[in-house]
């Protein structure tokens, strides 16, 4: 019996090891089972493939479902909008050649570009626009940003290439909202194909310069040039978005020449990358304001002199230089420059003496505040918070700083005022479209949590009035003036420690050119090409 048993042990062990070895050998080849075919295709294409490493795996490819800028950025290669924004935040023609806002502001009429085809060959026309607008208004469709479009009452097809949106009330911000990917035009036919339906839309078919070829979850999105594209044709036959969550790994991929472009390298490596001749660093201006939201309802912080003091106490230039490695600009208004409605209202220069004096006047000595920050959500957020806490300490404001993961963090700070447990928290606010209406969501009572995300609980009757008026004002010059006036009051009231407008780091190989950015944290690399 015994020898037999031992033989069995050996046999079993051999089988086990053989199985492991076999899987090891076949494993390598079978690895990218889903994608290997395409993978070798793309390498065969050689220099005609452009590779971009991004950090986020798409949760959805349905334009209507967009909430994440990086994902929207990918979908922008496939799906286009009626109007677009340019580098400076101005609205430009897209699928609509021109538009006319009615004098009463209650309708907008678009003249559509002719001869535009969807990737499935169906024509883009007024009916398609009607279909798309009605889809994003349809409550059955999951659409997180619907509020920005809810003002549309109906869509009227005037002729094949003319379409009118009728509005419930004047909404001068709507054009801006229509530039966002969520309002991207998909082929009406495609909602019944590729496993798509009206409510679950996974394979976008748009009019853009690239067609979705393949998406491997957690791995990559492969796009192919659309031969019938109506506009200027891009250089690369194929664009591959590689999903790489680790910033350090993205950087390595670029330095190893395995991708042509990355976004968001490790912030601390920016100076080294700037010195590296093999790559180019683009610190793109963005619309993301980073601030410390002050709980304006907290007894010790109700006096605006205290809040102003906190603003004077922090040396923002110093932090940007030493902690953010230059990847930001000091805020000089409660919103970023590319926004329609921006005007300069600041700054609060670094002045610790003035801060101490203001605190004294307000009788706010021995302040002790709870201060929280996310880690890794914004560029160097935790490190910046430590520096801020240190500056506050120097004017006699004690803080206890702590950090937590993002969902826990939002659950902690997005609570009604009576449940607030912290007095200071770091937050970033990036309007999805370039309009002060979006930024003012942070300063109006209607948006105090739990209804909205205005977590400093700031309100001022005059600001409420000005903003409400501006949100409906049809005359853009007058509108600009109203927002500007509101912004001046907000700056003076200091519901935030106004910090900086974050820049959006894009790094690409020095061998490619024509890479630019949009002011809403998007890269613009559709027309990238090799350096001649």
């Amino acid at each position, binding site marked *: 019996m*015994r020898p037999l*048993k*031992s033989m*069995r*042990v*050996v046999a*079993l*062990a051999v089988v*086990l*090891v053989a199985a*492991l*070895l076999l*899987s*090891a050998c076949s*494993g*390598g*080849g079978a*690895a*990218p089972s*889903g*994608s*290997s075919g395409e993978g070798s295709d793309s*390498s065969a294409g050689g220099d005609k493939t452009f590779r971009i490493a991004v950090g986020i*795996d798409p*949760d*959805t490819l349905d334009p209507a479902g967009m*909430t994440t800028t990086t994902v929207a950025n990918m979908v922008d290669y496939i799906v286009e909008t009626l109007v677009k924004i340019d580098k400076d935040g101005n609205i430009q023609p897209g699928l609509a050649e021109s538009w006319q806002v009615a004098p009463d502001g209650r309708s907008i009429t678009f003249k559509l570009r002719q001869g535009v085809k969807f990737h499935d060959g169906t024509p883009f026309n007024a009916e398609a626009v009607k279909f798309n607008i009605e889809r994003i208004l349809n*409550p059955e469709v*999951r659409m*997180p*940003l*619907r509020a*920005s479009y809810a003002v549309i009452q109906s869509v009227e097809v005037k002729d094949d290439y003319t379409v009118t949106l009728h509005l419930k009330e004047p909404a001068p911000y709507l054009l801006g909202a229509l530039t966002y990917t969520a309002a991207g035009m998909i082929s009406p036919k495609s909602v019944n194909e590729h496993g798509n339906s009206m409510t679950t839309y*996974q394979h976008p078919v748009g009019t853009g310069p690239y067609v979705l070829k393949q998406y*491997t*979850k957690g*791995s*990559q999105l492969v796009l192919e040039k659309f031969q019938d594209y109506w506009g200027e044709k891009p250089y690369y036959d194929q664009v591959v978005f*590689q*999903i*790489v*969550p*680790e910033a*350090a*790994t993205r950087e*390595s*991929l670029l*330095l*190893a*020449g*395995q991708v042509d472009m990355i976004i968001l390298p490790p912030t601390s490596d920016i100076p080294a990358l700037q010195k590296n001749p093999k790559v180019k660093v683009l610190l793109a201006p963005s619309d993301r304001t980073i601030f410390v939201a002050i709980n304006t309802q907290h007894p010790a912080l109700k006096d605006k002199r205290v809040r102003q003091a906190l603003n004077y106490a922090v040396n923002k230039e110093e932090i940007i230089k030493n902690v953010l490695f230059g990847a930001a600009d000091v805020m000089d208004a409660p919103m970023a420059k590319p926004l329609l409605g921006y005007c300069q209202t600041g700054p609060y220069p670094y002045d610790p003496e003035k801060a101490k004096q203001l605190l004294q006047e307000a009788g706010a000595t021995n302040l002790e505040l709870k201060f929280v920050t996310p880690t890794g959500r914004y560029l160097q957020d935790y490190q910046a918070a430590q520096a801020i806490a240190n500056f506050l300490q120097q004017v006699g404001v004690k803080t206890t700083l702590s950090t937590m*993961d993002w*969902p*826990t963090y*939002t*659950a902690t700070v*997005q609570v009604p005022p009576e449940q607030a447990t912290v007095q200071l928290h770091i937050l970033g606010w990036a309007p999805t479209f370039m309009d002060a209406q979006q930024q003012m969501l942070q300063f109006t009572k209607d948006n105090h949590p*739990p*209804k909205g*995300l205005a977590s400093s609980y700031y309100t001022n009757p005059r600001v409420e009035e000005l903003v409400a008026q501006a949100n409906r004002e049809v005359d853009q010059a007058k509108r600009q003036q109203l927002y500007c006036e509101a912004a001046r009051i907000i700056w003076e009231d200091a519901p935030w420690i106004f910090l900086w407008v974050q820049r959006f780091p894009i790094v690409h190989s020095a061998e490619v050119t024509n890479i630019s950015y949009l002011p809403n944290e998007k890269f613009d690399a559709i027309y990238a090409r090799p350096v001649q």
Partner: protein
Amino acid sequence: MKRYIIKRLFAAVITLLGVTFAVFLTVRLIPGDPAVVVAGPMASAEEVERIRTQLGLDRPFLEQYGTYLSRLIRGDLGVSARTQQPVLREILARLPYTLELALVSGALATITGVAAGVIAATRRYTLFDYLASFGTLLGVSMPVYWLGLLLIVLFAVRLQLLPAAGADEPASIVLPALTLTAYSVALVARMTRATMFEVLEQDYVRTAWAKGLPLRRIIYRHALRNALVPIVTVVALQFGALLGGAVLTESVFAWPGIGLLLVDSIFARDFPMVQGIVLIYSTMIILLNLGVDLLYAYVDPRIRYG
């Protein structure tokens, strides 16, 4: 034997049930409203409410758990809160990557670990033995994350030999597999060395020496064969550890397995997905343990089951 198997299977099912409850409870104790996370930062309050109802989060805890279990029995793991796709389909699409990584690393760790262990045991207190101990110590103490980045910098950036990340070509597996191997080879080597040590002390080995059998024959035919049972156990259990270790490795190397999916899903508060992945992990580890126990009982006549 049959009774033993049935008993062990029953215990496995109970364990699995316990796991489902523990996971269900834990994910709900994490602060952060999943409806808010899913809806995104700009969603209106009504939208958040709609999602909450859709996800069933407005119902009492036990009712949610009951619904979950009854669906589970029918093989339905639910729908991902983040992507709206069936959880099972998403997991199955990514499971092969994780299994492949674990298998390759497991094979590498087994071969190098057993070889190093055997040599170390037969050449006790020689330079090789010390080097092997040092090497295995280094292997266990180096964080996966750090080792992974070092390998990337060396092989992808400096030498430009291997892909740094992703899974688009066969060579992509090399760096993550090496990283993961370093993590588990140490345990296999140490276990092999210790077991071989013990076996080499046995009377029958001494008899074999006395008979003047060649060294090779003594080691492979007599000693290693008898040392294999505990080694097989360690290797099998190590496989479970490899599946776990893959979570970090997959993040560093952007390897699209379920470890990476788990990390993404936790950050997105995607409850159904987190539950699904933990369930799959637990099932695999419970099955491995079951397999090892049964194998043990089968191959070693000294073990009595009852």
